[in-house]
């Protein structure tokens, strides 16, 4: 079994982002970048499946500028066998990403595609489902548990009401929740070894897909600031404030 894992390079989750003064976007210059957190879970799950002997190859793919390679390199350092960078410049919408991934899937013919359920930059939560629609494959979104069966997967999904379990036949798409597993850290020897693993570079333009943005981002603004609050000195004062000032109890 071959597993393709899609990873995205985003502003690190610990960074307090800043909106550009001209309101055209957020500041990304000199800002720490990392792998989108649930994409780390996707890689971890694929590597675990390979370690259990149920998969033979894990391929990490990313789409973006040259620097996005770092994200693939990190995936190689925690156990992926091979990397692919699809090179593009500029804004990419999930629809475009899923069309490019479709081409990679057609080329690599994986049995499973994993990715994070949502990217923490645009918060779209679309790519996995879109890819699944384009391929007409089953989808299991928001996965917090995966059990490999013979020619299918049993997946537990986190939904608003609690948990849902579905069985999907292979080939299939799974989007991963942060609770799926605990991603490992890359050891120094593995980081060194990863430098020798191959990363194939493909220009997005070679894939014959229209990736022109369909959405125009006309303005990016800071959220409205909350009015500064106060510290209360005791529980009694808190209750008194909630009752007489805020009038919420």
């Amino acid at each position, binding site marked *: 079994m071959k597993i393709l894992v899609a990873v995205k390079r985003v502003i690190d989750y610990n960074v307090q982002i800043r909106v550009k003064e001209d309101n055209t976007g957020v500041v990304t210059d000199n800002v720490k970048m990392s792998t989108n957190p649930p994409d780390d879970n996707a890689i971890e799950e694929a590597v675990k499946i390979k370690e259990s002997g149920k998969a033979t190859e894990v391929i990490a793919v990313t789409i973006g500028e040259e620097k996005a390679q770092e994200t693939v390199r990190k995936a190689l350092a925690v156990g992926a066998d091979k990397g692919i960078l699809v090179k593009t410049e500029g804004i990419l919408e999930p629809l475009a990403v899923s069309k490019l991934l479709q081409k990679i899937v057609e080329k690599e013919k994986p049995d499973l595609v994993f990715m994070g359920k949502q990217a923490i930059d645009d918060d779209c939560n679309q790519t996995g*489902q879109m890819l699944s629609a384009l391929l007409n494959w089953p989808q299991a979104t928001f996965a917090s548990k995966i059990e490999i069966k013979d020619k299918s997967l049993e997946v537990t999904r986190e939904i608003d009401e609690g948990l849902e379990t579905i069985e999907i036949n292979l080939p299939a798409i799974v989007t991963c929740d942060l609770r799926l597993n605990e991603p490992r850290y890359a050891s120094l020897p593995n980081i060194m070894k990863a430098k020798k693993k191959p990363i194939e570079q493909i220009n997005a333009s070679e894939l014959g897909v229209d990736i022109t943005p369909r959405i125009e981002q006309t303005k990016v603004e800071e*959220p409205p600031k909350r009015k500064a609050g106060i510290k209360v000195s005791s529980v009694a004062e*808190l209750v008194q404030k909630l009752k007489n000032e805020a009038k919420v109890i």
Partner: protein
Amino acid sequence: MSVLLIAEHNNKELKPFTLNAATAASQIDTDVHAVIIGHNCEEAAKALSKLELVKKVIQVEAPHYENFVAENFAPVIVKLSENYSHIVSSANTFGKNLMPRIAAAVDTSQISDITKVISNDTFLRPIYAGNAFATVKSKDKKKCVTIRPTSFDPCESSGGSAPIEKAEAGEEFVLTKFIKREEIKSDRPELGTARVVVSGGRGMQSGDNFKLITSLADKLNAAIGASRAAVDAGYISNDHQVGQTGKVVVPDLYIAVGISGAIQHLAGMKESKIIVAINKDGEAPIFSVADYGLEADLFEALPQLLEELNKLNTIQK
């Protein structure tokens, strides 16, 4: 052209966020039609036809629609979409799972989780866990939009009398099989719509200690929330998680107990009307969004808070 609203339901009743989505849909265009796909969902379809803002209901029935599998739902909506300029649903796990499958099929770049309708092609949506807001204009002919339910008021659930039309069911997608759903039933208000939410974080230290949160929630008729750390640690189940990848809540009163306030958690609650933070670390970021902060050990503060609230009731009587 009209807007097609995708109703969320459990085959018996409408899910409350359908009412919020109807409001958002009507702000795009007043000619709102609603599609309900399910199995033996007659009652829910009737409830849908009574929504004040819904002009027509399209009901699609088949046994394989019983469990809301997106692979079964999407082709039905794609077929109906020919007659509509917009397709709208809630940005909860139901809509998040389903809408992109429709959008890809109709070759539209979806706009997720909008908090405001600016015009019929321009919307406001949070990005970076709500640390920025983007105004986005769709250039697609057909628009697929999911809406953040807590940013739109629910519409009236009565006053409407929309005709119910039946549409033909599609084929079953046999490669995906529903097995089971584990719902945690509770008499409490729902987290997404509660007027008061009491949330616990890693500071609770154990699942057992969440009893303190439960008692306070009982007292205030509140829903129970949690930070991701508390869910990850197994103190409480995932359906309680508030934050960027959990639920977004906008109650009148949000009480954060033992929650440090990572930006991912703040993304799910910072629009609440009044925020109370109880934390023993005076430097915790949660205090930066709190209207009232109490720097205290929660294991002392919570019993005292219950006692004070009890006193209050006695006085009121």
